[in-house]
């Protein structure tokens, strides 16, 4: 099954990434959105929680495996 896993990893991008840009955060393979508001967004991935806090937070794009959050981002916490 290791070979199948290798092939799967080669073909599909299953890696979890957080890309931080100016006034936006792009999360790839994000998992699930637990909570959403203008000042706080909580995302769950496997056993981890990602908490974003700031002002005027909006989900600009929400696809199956990708999420783009825009607004004034003050903190990003990964627990």
């Amino acid at each position, binding site marked *: 099954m290791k070979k199948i896993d290798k092939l799967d990893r080669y073909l599909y991008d299953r890696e979890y990434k957080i890309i931080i840009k100016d006034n936006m955060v792009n999360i790839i393979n994000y998992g699930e959105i637990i909570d*959403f508001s203008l000042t706080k967004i909580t995302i769950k991935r496997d056993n981890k929680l990602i908490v974003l806090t700031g002002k005027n937070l*909006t*989900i600009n794009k929400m*696809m199956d495996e990708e999420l783009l959050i825009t607004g004034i981002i003050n903190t990003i916490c990964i627990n």
Partner: protein
Amino acid sequence: MNNNVLIKIEGKNVNNYIKWLIKNRINILDLKVISCNELNALIDYKYYNLLTKYSKTYKISIIKKYGKLRLLDTIKDNLIMLSCTIFAVIFLYWLSNYIFSVDIIYNDKKIVNLVSKELQKYDIKKYSKKKNNIELNNVKKQILKDNQDVLEWLEIEEDGTKYIVRLVERKKASSVKENLYQSIAASKDAIITSINAYSGEKVKKVNEYVKKDEVIINGILTKADNTNIYTKATGNVYGEVWYKVSIEYPLYYYEELFTGKSKKTIALAFLNKKLSLFPYRKYKQFKSKSYILFENNLIPIKIIKERIYEVKLKENIYTPEEAVTKAKTEAVKKIKDQNSKIKGIKTIEVINKENLNSKIKIDLFISVIEDISKIINIAEEINFNSLHS
């Protein structure tokens, strides 16, 4: 092609609506919150129906469509115009397959009517269907064959929905006018080699030199009492005539003769070498024409389509003496072809010979035996005499 729609969502609290979207995992390509009561979202059209079904407290409207949906909408809005345009194009194309005019360009009405009737026989007339090139050629050939005593040449040219017919009438050779009284004179300067007089008086002898237009067999016979008897002189006169010919002949002769046999093949060309993909029996001597089917700037390999023609090569290297002999033969052949009255060749002398590297240039003096008979009509003389007597 994507099927995205830009929608406007209006309601009490759009943030709750966003939470609802997140909960239902509806993909959002772009989201803009305009105010607390309004937002614009770009989503896939497949989610739109879902939103309209379950979002009863919020008002959802489409601002803009993208992709295939937009195209379909444009077609729907302009359906009448598009369908009329398509119909018009099809109709014009259909009309263009019919003949609307047949113009026969010639100044003789009889010939024009004749050709018009012939064309109608083969259904080439107004409002009939146009013919393809093969059919037109067959019609032309048949019309010329059926009217070969009237028509020399016929051409049918297609110009849109008009057929332009050009023709040339066959001119009949005017019949030779028979003279009542005639003499036979020399057509060229020559030394007479033989005279065959069937009627008339021989005024010149064999081996006598005559100039052009000098009478040899006279149609006017003078009696002892100086009266003239007019007759129609008939006969043949042969004389020795001289020609000066200048001719150049190559010392190296090369000729390629196509036998008519050819083969088609596809080959791989790598730099200067060719490898045929389909094996075939090669000709001993051949010439080829090739067309490139595929080539790439990065790889020096091309796929080419080749047509190979069988040729027979004729190659000869002549010595100057052989070239002179060949040149003499060639000169004699040309003189005979140009003048059908030449009976035979008497002598060929080389006056001047010049060697020009790859060829020789020679001046020849050729004497031939030729029919120098020329008929002179003596009818006018009689009229003149009778008027004044």
